[in-house]
Each structure stands twice: as C-alpha cells, then as structure tokens.
C-alpha cells in the first residue's frame, strides 16, 4: 500500500523533477533578474553600498543624457536598415537558390558560410577589410577608375539582351526578360567588346587618387541630404557586414518556406495565364507570410541587441558614432573611470526591453494577419 502511494507521489512530482534544472535557470537568471532590474531602475546603486530608492529619477536622467539619445537613435537606425535589408536580401537569395539542380547544396552552404563564424571573427576580418588602405577602399578606387567603362559595359549588355529577347519574341518563342543563357551571352559579348576597346586604347581608365574613406575613426554621417536622420559612417560599416552575416541565416528559413509551398498553386495560376511577377506577388509572398513574420521578429530582436561589434571596435571608432542601447547599458554598469551607475543602466535596460516588446507587438499587428494567436 505504501509503495503505491510513494509511486503516485513520484508520478505527481515527475514533471517538476524533469523541469527542475530549466526552472532553476529560468527563475534565477531570468525571472528574478528581470524583477530585480525593474527594482534597480528605481534606485541609486553602485554595486557595493545599499540601493537607495529614487523613484523615477533614473528614467528622467537617461532622457537627459545626450549619450542615451544618441544610442537610441543609433539602435533604431540600425534596426530599421538592417532588418529591412537582410529580409529582402534573404528572400531574393532564397528565390535564386530555390531550384532543383545538381550541386545546389554546395552553393547553399557557400552562401551560408558567413553566418557560422562568430561576431568577433567577422568583425575583426571586417576591420581589416575597412582599413584606410584596405581592400574595400582599393575596390572603390578601382571602381572609380573604371566607372565609365563599367557603365558602357552594362549599357551594352542591356542593349544586347534587349535585342536577343526581342528577336526571340518576334519568332514567338517563350523567353523571359532575364533568360539566364541570353544574359550570360550578352555579358560575355559585351565584356569582350569593352575589353578590346580598353586593350587597344580606344578608352582608358581614369586616373584616380587612391580612395581614402575613413570607415571607423570618423564622426561624419551619411548621406548628407538626410540631415538629422543620416547615420554615422562607422555605424553604416557595421550595418554592411552585419547584413552580410545575417542574411544567409534567414535565407535558410525562406528556403524551407519556399519548399513548403504546394506546387499546385503555381500550376493552377499558370493555367489561368498568370506571369512570373504576378505569381510572385499573389502566391509566393502571401504563402511566405509566416516566415516573413518570423524573420522580421528575429531580425528586430537581434538588431536591437547589437553589442559585440561595438565592443570589438572599441576605441577604434568614436563612441558617439557607434554606441547602441546595449552598449550604453554595459558601459553604465562597467564605466571605465567612474563608479557603476546600476540605476541608470537598469532604467536603460527597462527601456530597451519595453522598446523590444512594443516593436515586436506592433510588427505583429502589421504583419501578423491570421497568425495572430
């Protein structure tokens, strides 16, 4: 009799036993931590003496701190630009890679490569890449030298492509505007013509002084006509390589989504006479809506937390040009030459948490649709 009840008790406790380790981390390192940060945000505390209640003063103070507003602006700019760009690039890449070909897996892996390395690795490589006499400035220099020639090349290729496609259409054969084989042919022929022109001296590359863009150690902003909305150039550089590393991850999500779209939808549309673009907007985009929702949510949460790149750049870029909310919180907790301002850090942290929740909620309202649970 006792054995049975002991067994029953064991059964009753089983879920909690199985959950115990997770509950421990969830409660101590999340629940308790969150509540405590809420509390800290209303206090004055330097990690050593007792916290002292100050009401809302920290919240008022962070908004008076120009560094905080700077950080908020940087974080929001970063969030908008990176999330938008990486989502679109991820979708385009996925569409391009969504074909049944031998060896396509190799290309998927190759494109995904930037995403497997750590933020430290990627950031260090890119700091080198963006040196004043670095690879990027060299590429830009060469680009400026060959600007006219490149323009000629592109125009020529476009003209050839147009002629080829028009010719096929006249012969009433099915052909797409960007028919790959035609495109390759146009590009090759155009390249050969332009190469010949340059080789025999009919047109020459311009003489250009080496481009000297300083990517990190600068307080300049770009683009000029944007006024107060322009972003600092170092932040722009971080955006560039951040997009480069995160887009492939989301590309994988889109690829999985594309493979789940039933082929009959396209077949039915084709029977109704729908064309490529029409199918894309009427079938692909709506079918991918849950994925887009997920990609955008993950993108928003991820970009709002951006910290590593700023910390790794450290003193190589001016603070005001790269500081983000996450970095602001960190530096208030561990300032290099002052006592820790836990209250300020916590208030900023609460602001970041709220901002994340509000933005994710808002985008759920806009994009969520039928997925609104």
């Amino acid at each position, binding site marked *: 009799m006792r054995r049975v009840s002991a067994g029953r008790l064991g059964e009753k406790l089983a879920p909690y036993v199985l959950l115990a380790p997770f509950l421990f981390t*969830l409660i*101590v390192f999340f629940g308790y*931590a*969150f509540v405590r940060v809420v509390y800290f945000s209303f206090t004055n505390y330097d990690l050593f003496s007792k916290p002292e209640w100050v009401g809302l003063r920290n919240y008022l103070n962070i908004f008076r701190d120009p560094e905080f507003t700077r950080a908020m602006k940087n974080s929001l700019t970063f969030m908008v630009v990176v999330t938008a760009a990486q989502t679109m690039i991820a979708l385009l890449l996925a569409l391009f890679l969504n074909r049944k070909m031998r060896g396509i897996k190799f290309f998927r892996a190759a494109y995904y490569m*930037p995403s497997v390395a*750590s933020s430290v690795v990627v950031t260090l*490589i890119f700091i080198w890449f963006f040196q004043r006499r670095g690879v990027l400035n060299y590429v830009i220099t060469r680009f400026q030298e060959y600007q006219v020639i490149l323009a000629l090349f592109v125009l020529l290729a476009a003209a050839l492509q147009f002629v080829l496609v028009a010719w096929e259409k006249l012969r009433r054969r099915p052909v797409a505007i960007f028919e790959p*084989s035609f495109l390759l042919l146009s590009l090759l022929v155009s390249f050969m013509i332009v190469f010949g022109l340059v080789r025999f001296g009919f047109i020459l590359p311009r003489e250009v002084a080496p481009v000297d863009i300083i990517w990190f150690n600068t307080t300049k902003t770009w683009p000029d006509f944007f006024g107060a909305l322009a972003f600092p150039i170092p932040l722009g550089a971080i955006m560039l390589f951040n997009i*480069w590393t995160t887009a492939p991850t989301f590309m994988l999500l889109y690829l999985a989504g594309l493979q789940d779209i039933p082929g009959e939808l396209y077949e039915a549309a084709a029977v109704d006479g729908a064309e490529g673009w029409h199918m894309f907007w009427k079938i692909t985009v709506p079918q991918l809506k849950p994925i887009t929702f997920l990609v955008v949510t993950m993108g928003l949460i991820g970009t709002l937390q951006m910290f590593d790149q700023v910390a790794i750049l450290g003193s190589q870029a001016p603070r005001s040009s790269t500081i983000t909310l996450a970095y602001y919180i960190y530096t208030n907790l561990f300032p290099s030459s002052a006592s820790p301002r836990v209250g300020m850090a916590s208030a900023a942290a609460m602001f970041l*948490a709220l901002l994340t929740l509000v933005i994710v909620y808002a985008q759920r309202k806009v994009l969520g649709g039928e997925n609104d649970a």
Partner: protein
Amino acid sequence: MPDLQRRRWANAAAVYCFLLLLSILFMGPFLFAFLSSLKDNPTEWPPSLTVNQLRPANWAASYRLAKQGGGSGLWGGLAPGGSIDFEITYWTEEGREPAPPEVVIPKRVQGGAAAALSVEHWAADYVEVVGPYEISREPDQGGVLTTYSFTLVNKGDVPLKEVPMDLTVPMRQEFVSATLSPNRIERLGRTQSWNNVSSGLLPYVFSNYARVFRENYSVSTGKRLFLLWIRNSFFLAVTRVVTTLVFASMAGYALARLRFRGRNAVFGLLLFSMMIPQQVTFISNYLVLRDGVFGLSRLVGVPTLLNTYSGLIISGLVGASSVFIMKQFFERLPASLEESARIDGASTYTIFFRIFLPLAKPPLGALTILTFQGVWNEFFWPLVVITSPADKYPLTIGLLNLQRTYGAATFDWGPILAGTFISALPIIVLFIAFQQYFVEGISFSGNKE
C-alpha cells in the same frame, strides 16, 4: 523542339555561372582574408592575390634549406655544424660593376620585445657567413644579371631555431630572385630581409599562425595563452552541450507531454524570456554570480562565481530556445506512444528515457551543433563574467585580447587574421561535416507558430 532543349541546357549552365559569381560575394572576403593571413604584410597596397607563402618554389626552398641545415624539413632549425647554401641574383644596368651583397645576421626576432625575452640563443652569435662568391654573370635587357652564392654555418654547439638575415647592396642594383623570397624589401629596394631562412616548410607558410601561438604568453603562469584559450572554449562548449542536451530534453518533454499545475505559466515565461535582450537581465545575473548564487557557493568554499567556469556553466545550464525546440519536437509525436506504456504501468521516467528520448535523435543532433556553435561564438556574457586572468579567457575574449596586443601602436594584422582563422576553423569543419544539422537547427528553431 531540340532548339528549346538546347536552350534549357544553356540556361542551366548560365545559372551555374551566376551562382558561382554570387558565391564570390559571400566567400570572397573570407578567402581573401585567409590568403592575407599567410602574407608577410596583410595590409599591403595595392592588395594583391600573389602570396609568396603559396609559391611552390618557396615551399621547396624552405624545406630544402631546413633539411640541409640539419633540422627537420617541415619544422626547421639549424643544427650545430649545419650549413645553409643560399643564392641571390641582382640586375645592374650596363656599365655598372655589380657588387656582392653585404650579408648580416641581425639580432632580431619576430614579435618584438616580448618575443625577444624568450630567445635563448641568438643566431647572430653563432652563425658564420662564408662568401659571398660570384658564381655567374649573364647579359639581360640592357644590363647584367649577377648571381652570388654564400653559406651560413652554425659554429656553435646549440641548435638554432630562428636565423634572420639581411642582405644589402648599393643603390640601383636591383633584386631579382633568391633561393627563398625575402619577407621584406626595405630601404628603397637596397635591403632584402628574411625573418628566418631555416624556418622549415610549415613555419614558413604559416608564420603568422606560428606567431599567434609563440608570442602570447601568460604573465602569471608563462603558459602559451592561445592554446589555453582553445582548450577553454572546447571545455565550455562540450560541457554546455551536455547540460543542454540533458536538461532541454527533460524540460521539453515535461512541457510537451505532461499535464501539471503551472505548465502554462512556465511556458509563458519561457516565451517572454526569448524576447527580452540579454543586456537587460545581465545586470542582476552579474550580481548573482558575484555573490555566489545567493551565497550557496560558499558552502563549497567558493566566495564568488565571477571569473569561474562554474559561473558560466550554471548560468547557462539550458537555454530557453533549446527547451522550445525540444518541446516542439515532442509535441508532434503521436499520443499512442505513451498510452500503451502507461497501461503497462510504466512510470513517467521510464516512458521518457525508454520511449521518447531514443526518438529524439534528430533534434538532439541539431541542438548539439547549435549549442556548440553558440557557446564557441559567445561573446557578451563571457566578457562580463571572465575578466582576469587572461589564462581563463575563452577564445572569443582571447581574440579581443589579441587585437589589443597586436593593435597597440600600428596594426600588425598578420597574427590577428591568423588568430581569427584558427578560432573559426572548428566551426567551419563542424559546418562542412554536419551541414544538414545546421540547416535543420535553423528550421527547428524557426517553427514558432
């Protein structure tokens, strides 16, 4: 329609070409950075694709020179009594008398003052130069090519690891070629300089990589830091993978298949925690570790968990997203699985370990890869918890340290790039071997709805 058939083939070929072109965009920066990590000067202008360290002639020469010097061809060295024959060719214009180069073995070591401290025997004190002798002279494009030969002999009774060499010639006598390409050409082309002519093949090609290991010593213990960092990262990653696999499957199973009070609350908190940035909760977590998890660690005699791996491991026992992935997986399994076992009187634990866990291989595989990658690449939390000594850093924080070491005055990019590639290597190998799991991991974590 054979015509259209042909076009289909042409289209496929064209698509391959475009795929290849586009992969340059994604792989290019990595590949070029890797090439540059082998170079003597990764910031040369203009950046070039030719790398001395990748020329087979130099491979053969570095191997031969070290072998001839009595060391190992692969690892280098100049044994006592060993000698190295070296040849170098210069070009002088017609009418100028070519002069033999002045051969100097300088007291120099790669890596500056810190590395100089660890040198026991300077090649400059033991190596004697025999020569140089002129061995050939032939006309060439309005000038003459003159080749000189000389021999470096180790007269001491100790093996030498590093034999640097400088050759200097008068103005307007141009360097053309040498047995081994020089690492630097200085003083307007007059001085050709080698870091180590008896380096052996591997240290020659991977000289920046060797420097990363050789030049970073711990101040307190004298151990090689970079090896320690790699070991630390491995230890942390493996431990966290184990705790994550065990605890995430337990929690995921409980949340997915068991009914108990507070289940919805736990799941709600889990979802909420996935949305809150780490930088919010780390303030309290830092304090929790500082105070040894409410003083509990004092029971085992540890006053604080800061700067300990226990701290990192305890705070990262199991992540919310891992539990989420396991819960999603267990939820999709049919109910019949446990029903019959229940009738047979099996306990919850038996059902979990005997029936459910063996089925969970795919998500556990994905979770292994995801967790390993996550811990290996983790930056923010270790930066907060592990501040000193440098012996305890994981690799990511170590790299930051490396950047400070070599970036103090002017950037010495060779070792920094080399360090980043060493640290990325395990993940790249893992990725190539378990590609499928990476992809699955992404889509597992993606099924949120």
